[in-house]
Structure formats: C-alpha cells, structure tokens
C-alpha cells in the first residue's frame, strides 16, 4: 500500500486527503487508526488536518503520545516519507520530528482563507519539479499556525535548506501583509534534515480540483506520489 493516512480521534481532514489520493490521483491509500503500529507496508504516511485529541493543552501535544507516533518515528528514521498537513504539521513539531514550535495566530483568531506561498526548495521529494520561486495559491484554516523558532534554529534551518514554503504576495514577495498568522520569517512549511519529513500549514487537499476554486495543491500531491513510486522501487 502506497499511502497511509493517520486517523487520530478528532482528525477531520482524513477523508478529504483520502479523496484526493484515491479519486483524483488514483493512488492506493487507506486510513491508519492512531492505535495501529505496523507501517511496514506503506511508502508514505500522511498526518492530516483536524483537532487530534481535541487539540487540548496545545495543538498536537496529546497526539504525539498516540501509539502510531512511535511507529511514525521509526518509519521516518528508515527513510519513509512523512507528510504533515496543518494539524499534522503541529503533531510532527510536537513529536520532535520537525524543528520549531507553533503559537496562536498573531490575530488570536481562527483564520480560514486563501494565501499564496513561495516554494523555496525543490530538493526534497515533496516539492520535486516545483522550481524555487513558484507561487502556489492554497487555503489555510487554523488557530495555532504561527510558526516559531529561535534565532539559532532559524539560522540552522536556513543553512540546511529546511525552509520549504514561505507566505508571500501574488508576485512571490514575502511581505508581512501576506502572512496570515505571524509566522517567523513568513515560514509556511519546513522539512527535517534528512528531507523525508515535511510539514505545512496550508491545505493542499482543499485545492486539488479546479471546481474548488484552484488546483495548485495537486502539484504537491503529484510530487509526493511520484516520490512514493520511486521509493517503492528501491
């Protein structure tokens, strides 16, 4: 099986993610219950959006203790692809699989709207084929999406090329007005050092079909699917 989409109690975008994988990309994909620990048959694990365990305490803070997360950590260490979308990104940060932390949005409100993000790197499986500077139009929907890292960490992320997406205007300029949540340095998505774990706050699964007002998200899904295929052939 190529894709596993983790279902925590309180996940609410797993069906959307499965829809895009199965109905739009025609990829084999199944839900993975948060108590499952056998990920041996997957090439890519997706942690979807939602409110895992109610996001009580802090977004993702309880989900990191779900049994599946130890397996996800091993899966990532073995080189498997791990993709966190919105709440999934928060879970990966809480689990220490991605650097940094999430704060409440600068406006202290939930924000659901379209944003533009600039692709910074294409040297990871999740953005392969998307030239740096490419602007993607994607929706966000979150209340704790203000990415934070201290100066030393941010510097390290920059040096290692781990900042993958930044909020920008429609021309690709990373202005403050284009930042929906106050994220430091307009960071919208980061990867780990090994480049096989990737998290982003926007929801590519919400714009993978033109009928929904845009299909830029499909580019990310296609890149991931390609990568999963080549991983499967290792």
């Amino acid at each position, binding site marked *: 099986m190529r894709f596993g989409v983790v279902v925590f109690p309180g996940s609410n975008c797993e069906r959307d993610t499965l829809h895009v994988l199965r109905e739009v990309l025609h990829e084999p994909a199944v839900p993975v219950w948060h108590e499952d620990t056998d990920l041996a048959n997957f090439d890519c694990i997706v942690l979807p959006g939602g409110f895992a365990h*109610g996001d009580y305490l802090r*977004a993702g803070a309880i989900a990191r203790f779900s049994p599946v997360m130890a397996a996800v950590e091993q899966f990532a260490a073995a080189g498997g692809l791990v993709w966190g979308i919105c*709440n999934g990104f928060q879970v990966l940060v809480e689990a220490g699989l991605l650097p940094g932390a999430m704060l409440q949005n600068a406006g202290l409100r*939930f924000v659901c709207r379209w944003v533009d993000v600039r692709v910074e790197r294409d040297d990871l499986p999740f953005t392969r084929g998307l030239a740096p500077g490419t602007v993607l139009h994607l929706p966000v929907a979150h209340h704790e999406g203000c990415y934070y890292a201290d100066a030393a960490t941010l510097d390290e992320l920059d040096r290692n090329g781990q900042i993958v997406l930044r909020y920008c205007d429609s021309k690709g300029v990373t202005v403050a007005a284009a930042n929906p949540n106050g994220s430091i340095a307009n960071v919208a998505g980061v990867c780990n050092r090994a480049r096989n774990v990737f998290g982003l706050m926007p929801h590519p699964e*919400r714009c993978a079909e033109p009928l929904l007002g845009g299909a830029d998200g499909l580019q990310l899904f296609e890149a991931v699917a390609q990568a999963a295929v080549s991983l499967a052939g290792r």
Partner: protein
Amino acid sequence: MRAAERLTPGTVGLTEAEYRHICESLEREPNNLELGMFGVLWSEHCSYKHSKPLLRRLPTTGAHVLQGPGENAGAVDIGHGLAAVMKIESHNHPSAVEPLQGAATGVGGILRDIFTMGARPIALMDALCFGDPGHPRTGYLLGGVVGGIGFYGNCVGVPTVGGSVTFDACYNGNPLVNALCLGIADRDRIFTARAQGPGNPVLLVGSATGRDGIAGASFASVELGAETEERRPAVQVGNPFLEKLLIEACLELAGHPDVVAMQDLGAAGLTGASSEMAAHGGCGIEIDVAAVSRREAGMTPFEVMLSESQERMLIVVRAGAEQDVRAVFDRWGLHSDLIGRVTDDGLVRIHDGANLVAELPAGYLSGGTPEYQPPVMQPSKPTLRSEAPFSVPDDLGAVLLDLLASPNLCSRRSLFEQYDHMVQINTIVPPGEGSAVLRVKGTPSGLVLGLGSNPRACAADPYTGGALAVAEACRNVACAGARPIALTDCLNFGDPERVGVWQALTAVIEGIREACVVLDVPIISGNVSLYNETEGAPIDPTPVVGALGLLEDVTKHARAAFEPSQEVWLLGPLAAELGASEYAAWSGWKSGAPAALDLDLERRVQACVRELVESGLVTTATDVADGGLAVALAELALAGNVGIEADLAAEWGSIRPDAALFGEAGSRIIVGFDPAYRTRVDTIARQHRVPTTRLGVTGGKRITIGDWLAVDIDEARQRWSGALDRIGAAQGPGGAHGDS
C-alpha cells in the same frame, strides 16, 4: 434540591390549569421528578403548545419529501440513492446569557439532529440577529456568538458555508442565534427515533451526564429579564471534540441491522429522548438512572433526568447485539451505558436502582400538552404611510458609501474567515455571495443553501414579511441556478400571549403558507422560539427560512460577482418602495409599509433565472435585497472587482432618485451575461412573462449609475471592508482554539 421540598407547578414552568389537567389524567398528584419531567416536555420549546395549531397549516409534502416534520430533521430525495437531511433550530436564550457556549451548543444540537438520522453533516449556516451596534452588550454578544460557532463547527469538521447577520435595536439583550445544518445519507439507511421491540436494550452513549443545562427547555420558554444572568447554570457547555467522536461512531452504525432507533438528547435531555422514542414507537420504556455515567457524584434522579449535558445519544438495539454496538463506542473512547429496555405497556418508568421513582404514560407526557386556543382573529391589514418623511439627499454617492459601511450591509468577511468553510472539500461557492453551492461527491449534482428573513417587513406587514422570507430564500437558491426542493423554518417571536405577537405569528405563518403553495416547495422541518423579549418588549417578528436547492449539474451555476464586459439586466419589476427598506431604516424611518409581493410574478422570475443559468447564458445572478438596486450592483462589482456603468434615469421618469437606487421590492434579480446572448436572454424572459430592464455594461473600476452617482470601487471596498470589526467581532472571543 432537598428531597423534602415540594415543587410547585410554577417553578417548573407549568400553569395551574396544566397542573390540574395532569392530576386529573393521572388520577393522582405527580411527584417532584414527574412534575419536572412534565415541566420540560410541556414547555413551549418541546411541546409547541401555542404554535402547533398554526404550524399544521404549512404544506409539508412534495415529490422529493422522504420525511417531513416530526422526526429529528426532515429529509428529501436528491437522486443517486441519496437523501438530504436538513433542519434549522434556535438557541436564542442560552446565547443571550452566555454567548460563546450558547452559540456553540446551538451548533452542536443541530448537528446531532442531522446525524441522529444517519446522515453525515456537510454544511452549517447561521442566521444571527443582534441589538443596536451602539448597545453596550452588542459587541460582547457578537464576539461571543461568532467565537462559539467557530469553536464548535471548526473542530467537528463541518464547514460553515454562509449565514446572515442583522442588527436592530429590537434585539438588544435578546440576540437570535438560528443554526441550520444539512446532511447527506443513503436514502435507504435513514434512522428513525421510533423505539420498537419490547425487551430490546436501550443504550445511552457519548458524554457522561453532568449538572449543566438542567431544565434548559423551561428556561427557553420564559422571557428574559433582569435576573437573566442568574440563569447561567441553565446553559449547557459544549465539547466539539466529543461531538466529533460521536458523529463518527454513530455514522459507523448507519444502516446497521441491529440498530432499531436513535434519538439525540437535546432539550429536556433524557426525559425528552426516552419519552419521545417510546411515544413515537407506540411502546413503553424503562430506564434505570443508576446506570447512567455521571460527571459528578451525588446527582439526584431529578438532575439526571433533566440534565441537558451535550453530546449524548439514546439508541435502541436489537436484543443480543448490545456488545457489538458498544464495541464501536468503546473504540471511539465514548461511554455506552446499558440503561434500560423497551417495554410494551406504553409507560415511561424510571428506576433509581431498586426504587421506582417515576411512572408516566409516554404518549401523555410527550404529546398530551393541552394546546393553547387563542381567540380567532383576522390579521389586521396595517395602515402605514407610504411616503417617506425625508427629502432626497444631495450626494447619493456618499449615501451609497455610507450604506456599504453600515452594520447591516458591510462585508461579512471578517466573520466567515473565522469559520472553516472549506473542510470536506465540497464548497464550490464560499460564504458571502447570497447562497452557498456544494458539490455532492460521487454524483454530478450540487446542493444550494439560501436564507430568507425580513423582520423589518414583518413588523410592518407580517403576512407580506412571512411570504417574503420564503420568496427570498428560494430566490437566493434560484439565482445560483438551482430548483428549491425543501424549506426549513425557524419562527422567532415574542410572548404569544400578547395579542399583537399572536396576530403577527398567525399572519406570518399564513404568508409562509401562501408562498410555499405558489412556489411549490414544502417545509420539511423547523423550530419555533417564542418569548424573545427583553424588559417587556417583544422582538420584531423574525421568521428565518432556509431553502435547499438541487442543481442537476453542479458545474452549471451562477456567481454573485460581475465579470468584465457583461451586459447587465434587471429581471422583475423596476418599481420599488422606500417603506421597510434598509435605506429608510438607516435614515431613521422604520414605519413604512413594504412593497406588495406578487407571488405569481415571483415564481416566474425564479423560473426564468433558473432557465437562464441552466442554459449557460447567465453566469452572474443575484437578488436585489437589502439596500436596493444600487447596493446590489455595488456588491456584484466588489465581488468581481469589475465596475458597472448603468443608466436608469430614462426608464424611471419622475420617481425620486433615492427610491430608484435604494428602494426595495420582491421578485427582482440582477443578471449579467455575454452581450452576444442578448436576444436569447430576451426570448427566455418573454417566455416566462418576466419584465426586464437593461441596466448597463460592466467594465472599469467605477460604480456609475447615470448622473445620480459615481463611486470608485477601491473607495467602496475600503468603506465596506472591516466595518464589522469596529462593532466587536474583532475582539477575539477566547475559548475558541485549534486547527484544521
């Protein structure tokens, strides 16, 4: 309460006459618990004792109807083996006292009404009314209600796809929070709430039971007063995370052959759910309160039976299947208590362990409320002046900008951006365009939701106002290109024992009935909220109608936004009235009569726009509503970021310009299309015998209407945007959290 304390009928909201009726029927006096059970179930909120005779007049059947009023929600056939399940419900009183939790649990309650039927909730909408923006509580209530809707809806993963917000001094201190939910089910797997099969076990699933919301239904059926703040304990506390788990667990059971019936615990809690299930099924039910999981120690049977703790469900399963069903709830980490069984004696029998603590006939408890018989009266035809008592302002462009920045007409973006309106990836037309368009995955079809409400017109002329609410809701759906197939209504009124309120209720329902008949669309569910008063004054009569439309092909729908180089026409009458218009109210004149509504013309105009959109000729359509023609043109220009050059003076002759620009009337729709289609559009309009007026062409960055006004789009946008934030929605509500 202490056991020895004897409750009086008044403390549970019953009249002396109702109490005597109970004693005579039971041939004994009820004990405290029994009296409490009657109090909640015989409240207006649960029994509709005032409104039932009137509600019977509404048409509730039609070609698509699978389930009319009487179950948790109504259901209609939408083809492809699917049913749409829909209902609107109020949560006004709780929101007045504790806006965040009041609104949140309003959302939670309407969601449960939908998934109790085995339908997955796919969309929410809210009709909200608040007091004067300058009133000291308005900002607090607005921020809290919006925060509560987001807090709950965002977490459960059901998109809030639209709604309405109205400000008027009549709602000072008594806001209205009406939540509508739409769900989709397999047509053949709809659950009912009819308990069946003596001996079948009864499960209480979901959350544990606490002391919140005790006797909330009774609270909802009295007027708010100075002591309202003291009613906080009657407000429930919502947990959207638990609701999300409950949705998934219950839907896992949809179509399960061993599930006999399902009923959510809403108003009147366990008392309501158990007695209604038994009464609907024509059987009895036996419950042991000692088996109910509690949040607190020491709860009495009275408290357990009357608690309105949220996120609970009562399920009747086939004997022997209880372990299978309980395993599903175990997996989702939810309680599933085996609390009783179905009986064949028609009684609701409550035990506390070995002790029998209440025994009442189910049918009498949930359906025996004596109906209130008001004096028969003719709805009085209002005699109102139709001449506006103010002169035409000099600068009509400035008036347009002021109206666009006014609380009732300014952009709602800052509200709907706080709601997740995209989750479930069905939202084709997002909030802000008059109606929401959703795709139905796995089919070519779409569903369209529209709202209609016109309290200002209802206050002046309740019959016309009621008909307008239906017409507007259907018109919004028609503008998207869809055929309305079902309505749900929420009737928000003051104390029905006031003659004026009763008269208005009678006339509004008559108006709704007439419009339903002419437009050929049934009411499949609804709710009545009476006693909306503060300090002795009733609110304006506020019927809110939600319309569900069906699009055979979801790709063929119109948007409420101009495109460049379109020809722009008005369908329907050119004439409009200042009476009951937003502009007149904004100018300080609220006593004018609304324009008469010609329902037959309304039907033809809606059929016409539907054909124009279906045929692919028209890609832009919106109804002309609050603020009249000028505001509708400005909204279309703002949404599309394309200007309009209109010239009207010639058609209008000597009408006063502000009436032409800002006057209101029913049956009016603006359409935009490629000029190449002019002849075909004209032919279709003639076939429907719909009058048309050419308004102008789109292009540029200005909104120009003859010599009367010319406004720059960017300036209009600047005034229109962000105006709501100044009222208080900007003050983050607190309590809302989390992410998608």
